[in-house]
């Protein structure tokens, strides 16, 4: 007796279109490609003098951030504005008591204001699922990062970047380096790369930063940086939070950099055309050397540009899925 038979994908409509965007896990390749293709059509909007399309005119998007974030929230805000939506930003410091209740009260209040979309960031894994289960059927929920679970728009902008520079995913070796354990970005990237057909996905880190059974997600595990980087086409560094040193996961930043930091010397074993990515914000000299972050392999700033187009794509697809999704 398990719950497997009672877990249809809550983020899809009956005809397999997006109604929420909560996780890459469970989506199929055509849908991910549709997101990338739609994003491509939005990239040029950013180059126009009037950077707006009217797809979400009259819609209200609420950025519901339970965890501080400047970059992600700003790109969601810009994406919504470029789609002509009205945007409301709400930053919530979580109260220590009766969290569940206050969260539900807040949702009902915001719904009463006729919101059409919640963009949610929360420190608890699964929080966007809970919110999606509580909102009325015509409200879309987009996950802007939940706990260690998922950051699907970040992963899709990374996929956009990879496709832009590498043309596709076949025969591609991708190495993800650093704190895999706490990284929602890594989990979403792994799902996206697997679904899009990357030939090899590697994760590299010390065992204290590798989740148990991570192999089950379809990756190869390396604890040695040089072995893991060999012949890689794409190298993704992850941000290392300072608090990891306090909880006995690592001895020091400098030892981490010595063993797992990306510098020019270590990257020489990669494919000569390898690109280097980072979801930001960067700790120069901890997970990545400044000369790499700012060097010619780095595509980090392009990731940010593509991020707006990818978020526009996901938002417009969710709204259209909601409207075509058959709300009675």
């Amino acid at each position, binding site marked *: 007796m398990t719950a497997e038979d009672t877990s249809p994908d809550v983020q899809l409509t009956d005809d397999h279109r997006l109604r929420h965007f909560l996780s890459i896990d469970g989506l199929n390749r055509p849908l991910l490609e549709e997101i990338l293709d739609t994003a491509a059509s939005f990239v040029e909007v950013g180059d126009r003098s009037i950077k707006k399309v009217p797809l979400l005119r009259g819609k209200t998007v609420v950025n519901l951030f339970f965890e501080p974030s400047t970059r992600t929230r700003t790109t969601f805000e810009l994406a919504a504005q470029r789609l002509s939506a009205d945007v409301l930003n709400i930053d919530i410091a979580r109260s220590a008591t009766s969290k*569940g209740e206050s969260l539900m009260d807040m949702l009902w209040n915001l719904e009463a204001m006729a919101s059409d979309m919640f963009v949610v960031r929360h420190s608890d894994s699964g929080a966007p699922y809970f919110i999606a289960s509580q909102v009325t059927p015509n409200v879309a929920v987009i996950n802007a990062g939940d*706990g260690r679970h998922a950051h699907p728009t970040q992963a899709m902008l990374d996929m956009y970047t990879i496709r832009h520079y590498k043309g596709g995913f076949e025969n591609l070796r991708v190495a993800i380096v650093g704190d895999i354990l706490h990284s929602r970005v890594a989990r979403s990237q792994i799902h996206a790369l697997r679904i899009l057909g990357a030939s090899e996905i590697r994760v590299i880190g010390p065992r204290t930063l590798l989740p*148990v059974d991570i192999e089950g*997600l379809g990756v190869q595990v390396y604890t040695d940086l040089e072995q893991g980087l060999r012949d890689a086409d794409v190298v993704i560094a992850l941000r290392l939070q300072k608090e990891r040193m306090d909880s006995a996961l690592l001895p020091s930043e400098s030892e981490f950099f010595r063993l797992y930091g990306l510098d020019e010397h270590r990257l020489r074993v990669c494919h000569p055309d390898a690109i280097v990515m980072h979801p930001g914000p960067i700790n120069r000299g901890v997970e990545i050397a400044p000369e790499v972050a700012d060097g010619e392999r780095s595509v980090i700033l392009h990731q940010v540009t593509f991020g707006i187009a990818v978020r526009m794509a996901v938002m417009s697809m969710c709204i259209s899925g909601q409207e075509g999704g058959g709300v009675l």
Partner: protein
Amino acid sequence: MSQAHLLIRKGRIIDPASGRDEIMDLLIEKGRLARLGASLDAPGAEIFDAEGMWVLPGLVDTCVRLPSPSSIASETRAAASGGITHLCVMPDGNPVTDSTAVVRLLREQAMKAGFARVLPLGALTQGLNGEQLAEMRTLTDAGCIGLSNAGRPVQDSLTFKRCLEYAATFDLPVMLRPEDSSLSSGGCAHEGPVATRLGLPGIPALAETIDMARALLVIEQVGVRAHIHQLSCAGSVALLRQAREAGISVTADVSIHHLLLDESALANYDSRFHVRPPLRSTADRQALLAAVADGTIDAVCSQHSPMGSASKAAPFPDTQPGIAGIETLLPLLLKLVEDGDISLLRALDAITASAGRCLGQPIGMLEPGRMAHVCVVDPTRQQRPGDDWLSRGLNSPWLETMLPGIVRLTVCDGRVTWLSD
């Protein structure tokens, strides 16, 4: 509810304690189990026709959590509807059971409600803080049947050893749930592939086995009477078998949901499946089932934890762990029997005589001369638990599932506490 003068006729009497399994009559006179026999004559007695039904000892639940003494009436009524006559109540309610006043309150409320016997456990340490010994002897003198630190195992090994030594001084039984909090802290799901996929902070099986090993070593050295609550993994079963082989005398139970569910239930962050210890792997579940089937694990409990809807209405890690399960203990166990995982006699033993032995009480048996604790079950019928739910806690994943067995009659302390069509 007056003392029954009741003839239960032609039921299949199943008494795991004596091994009796035959169709006969059972007579209750002045609240006592007077006689068992074929075609008993009892002028003036009320007749309950139990043809085609099972007549069992009143069921014993070795682990129940009650939020407060005020919930006793509703939860013991729910227990009676599930055939349960004795429930062992953890000391971690509000207030904590660490004073005679609280013990008295629990007993008075139970007496007043009159649906089932509440067997309270007293706190092992004051306020369950794991630092100072509670007044163990005073608590047991006031009516506690044993001592426990509930879901907050004593972490400091010296304090833990002294707790057990003090209890052993007066031959008081201790009930332990093993968990090393340094390994479980912050976790809410079994550390395994599902938690990794869902990004939920994990509680490794090691958190239980390390503390289980420590507990068994101290139990052996001190020689205290001990029971281990809620094993959740194959490693703990292996340790229990080793301990038995080494001659350490210890009993153990498992919650019914750990026999039915595994970590895969957490997909989509369904907070109804948030329990502590967490649901573990399929292999763990199978090891627990096998251990119940062969008697290594003595008893199966509900780990009943009724809670209000707000406790489960939040993102998964923020929800309270627990399932309200006192009404589904028997039907779920019968489902395992139906599925061929456990024999009927062993399943019933695990919620009657064996459960009584775990608690050090002579209960869960049909013995003429004693106060009557009996339940009558119609095994041919099914029901959806949610149709007739009595617990205040609606936190059950089985409200809408058809389950075998309906409790038709419960007699506790010689009084009818439940009767249904």
